[in-house]
């Protein structure tokens, strides 16, 4: 029996490793073709990691990515493709920032309020797609993409000074006003000049733990995974498919609502026009690469954050930092192909092995045999 477990572990790693190796080779080829020295580039990238301020940047970015990927992964686990994490977190962060700036509660309560608002708004926005799917059969892929652009416009309108936004003197930037200091999430300084690790990064780690527990150790999680594995079988087993779709959309949206929190609570303390965008799409990449597994997602979030942050000073050395984007793209393609290859190989291999073991008589003892 142990053998199958080991096999599964090896196969579990085979996918990502194969994908990364292929992506590495392809990236090297791209660099060579465009007449850049790949090894110089790789050396530069890794040199960046040795700086403690870059380390902090990477960790902070990874925490944010981790939440985005978790939000996507919740959907993936039951065959829902929530492309709308991007719109959900932006709307949520903006609403939470508004509420946070206009209310002043003592200490932790202020933070809790902001976080809860963000989760509710995220869930609400995702819930629209959920309701459309359960009542009208609208594909969540289409509706969430559309909700993304609606959310972009909505945020742009809400943040106008004539509505809820503020424009600082002598600046073109629009903000939602500053959150009072009671709503700032304390960070962890790594060293005096390296900057702080967002406190919310640890909340993100906690979310990963909760994600694992809920999926693997609760009845709800089992129903969710069963629905993802086979909707018809789940239905026959007593899962209310519509309720399940709506619930997981709401959860996915609520987690998406958290995506903006590390930045909002730990850094900007306001939602402005230059608030990070596109995190939801990066989250899709990371969830895919991490195979929807909390640890896998953490490692991939670190990898992507590393490519992001380590590449930004490349310009100074004569490399375009868009190279990192190309590398991420290549990783996505390699991931999709290699996971499917490994999955098929794994299924075939196990079928073969089980066949051999049974033919070899290595079955669990049956009562009949035990009686002999």
């Amino acid at each position: 029996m142990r053998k199958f477990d080991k096999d599964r572990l090896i196969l579990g790693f085979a996918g990502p490793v194969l994908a990364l190796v292929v992506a590495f080779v392809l990236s090297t080829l791209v660099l060579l073709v465009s007449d850049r020295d790949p090894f110089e580039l790789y050396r530069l990238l890794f040199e960046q990691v040795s700086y403690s301020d870059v380390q902090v940047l990477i960790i902070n970015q990874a925490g944010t990515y981790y939440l985005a990927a978790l939000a996507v992964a919740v959907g993936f686990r039951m065959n829902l493709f929530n492309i709308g994490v991007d719109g959900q977190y932006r709307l949520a962060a903006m609403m939470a920032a508004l509420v946070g700036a206009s209310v002043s509660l003592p200490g932790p309560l202020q933070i809790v309020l902001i976080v809860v608002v963000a989760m509710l708004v995220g869930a609400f926005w995702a819930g629209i797609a959920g309701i459309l799917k359960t009542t009208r059969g609208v594909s969540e892929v289409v509706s969430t993409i559309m909700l993304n652009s609606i959310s972009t416009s909505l945020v742009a309108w809400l943040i106008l000074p004539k509505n809820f936004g503020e424009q600082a003197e002598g600046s073109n930037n629009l903000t939602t006003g500053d959150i009072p200091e009671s709503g700032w999430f304390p960070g962890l300084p790594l060293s005096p000049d390296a900057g702080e690790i967002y406190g919310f990064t640890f909340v993100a780690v906690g979310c990963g733990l909760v994600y694992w527990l809920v999926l693997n150790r609760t009845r709800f999680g089992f129903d969710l995974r069963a629905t993802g594995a086979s909707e018809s079988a789940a239905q026959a087993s007593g899962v209310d498919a519509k309720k399940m779709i709506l619930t997981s959309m709401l959860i996915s949206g609520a987690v998406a609502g958290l995506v903006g929190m590390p930045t909002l609570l730990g850094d900007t303390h306001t939602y402005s026009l230059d608030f990070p965008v596109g995190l939801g799409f990066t989250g899709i990449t990371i969830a895919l690469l991490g195979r929807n597994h909390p640890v896998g997602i953490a490692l991939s979030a670190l990898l992507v954050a590393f490519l992001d942050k380590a590449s930004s000073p490349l310009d100074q050395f004569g490399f375009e930092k868009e190279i990192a984007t190309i590398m991420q793209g290549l990783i996505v393609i390699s991931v999709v192909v290699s996971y499917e290859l490994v999955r098929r190989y794994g299924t075939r291999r196990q079928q073969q092995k089980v066949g051999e073991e049974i033919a070899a008589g290595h079955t669990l003892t049956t009562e009949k045999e035990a009686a002999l």
Partner: protein
Amino acid sequence: MLPLLSGQGECVINASSSPPAVELHGITKRFPGVVANHDIGITVRKGTVHALVGENGAGKSTLMKILYGMQKPDEGTIAVDGEQVTFGNPGDAIARGIGMVHQHFMLADNFTVLENVVLGGEKLHGIGSAARKKIMEISDAYGLGVRPDALVEDLGVADRQRVEILKVLYRGARILILDEPTAVLVPQEVDALFANLRELKAEGLTVIFISHKLGEVLSVADEITVIRRGTTVGTADPAHTTTKQLAELMVGSELPSPETRESTVTDVPMLRVEGLTLSVTDPDGAVRDVLSDVGFTIHKGEVLGIAGVEGNGQTELIETLVGMRNPDSGVITLDAEDISRTPTRKRREGGIGYIPEDRHRHGVLLDSPLWENRILGHVTEKPNSKGWLLDPKAARADTERIVREYDVRTPGIEVTAASLSGGNQQKLIVGREMSHHPKLLIAAHPTRGVDVGAQAQIWDQIREARREGLAVLLISADLDELIGLSDTLRVMFRGQLVADADPATITPEELGSAMTGAAAGHLEAAPEDEAR
């Protein structure tokens, strides 16, 4: 008992004019530690239908994989048309004119028949008119009646199977291996398939036919080889063999008699269905009644069998009872409690066990390990969960118990359901459902695709539970199973229960005619009305 069965030593051709289509001699295949095939010898004469029967795990599949080039034998020789061959892969086998029709069809649904046939064989006759001509030629020659432009998704199971056969013939096969071809067919379709096989035979093709259904084997095969525990235990002449003899040869011991008709029927109703009506809207917009005014009662300790050609509302009836469909009208009462509007999960917690018709769609999670499949459908019940939390440890332990008690052949409980054979998946499902001591068991084709030994075992389990007061709704295409197991029989035709019969006196033929709508009412003049 065995005078009509020759020992394997005689499985060698008589000096006849043409060499045998396939001759396997002394085939031995070892897997680490044990022998899967041992000294197998089979001779398949040209232009015959040769049946290969044996229990699951007897070594049939290994043997067929060897013949189809998927595995290499450690010892022994294969001769095709009198010529010694060695196959490195299925391609080699196809080149020698051997084709295999798998149990699960491998067709692209959104392609037409023509596209499916030429797919992967584009070099043979192109993809255009030459290919179409060739397909029609083959179809006409063997009476397959294939329409090259039909979309595969619009075809029924039997038509798909004919496409699979055509695919193999298109690639020039002269020897066809059919792996349990009748498992998915209804009786009429089986007859049609057998007519096709006879055509193939008449044209000089050779068919190797793997099956569990011994009655069918006897009706279609010219020769039968029985495999038990990895070796050929004999050949039989279908003209002089009964299913019972064949089954005993397969299992290696005498079978328990299937007829133990001591009645356990009580007069306490367990399931009462009244005026159940359900209509569906077809893709073309027409509204059609699939269930109209269906009513029956199953008492504690009673097995109610419903006979009917597939597609006459049985599936919908089951899905309505389980709660996967909402009826338009009608009342369902389980153990004196109205469950007409109760959600599926509550019904299952309330004591409905469910052995689904299509186990891949409704019974198992193919890519999940066995112990998770043991949880499926009973996630809220012990031992699978405590409160809101799963209890994987207890679930695993209980899965091991099911595997032991229900004779599921598997190396362990961490392997995925997909890696088990259909029969073993079914045993796991039966074990899982019986483990929760249901009040009502809805069993759709409970022994479909299951070998003879396991079939008897599943029957025994149902009978035993019935003695303890279980009510069973049995739906089956196997009329012998229906008659043998049921206390009461009903016939379903176009969404209605049109006839009833006493299983003690009815014959499969009489039942069969009612299934086609030719007879209705009480099927024989019994003096007293059966308990309702």
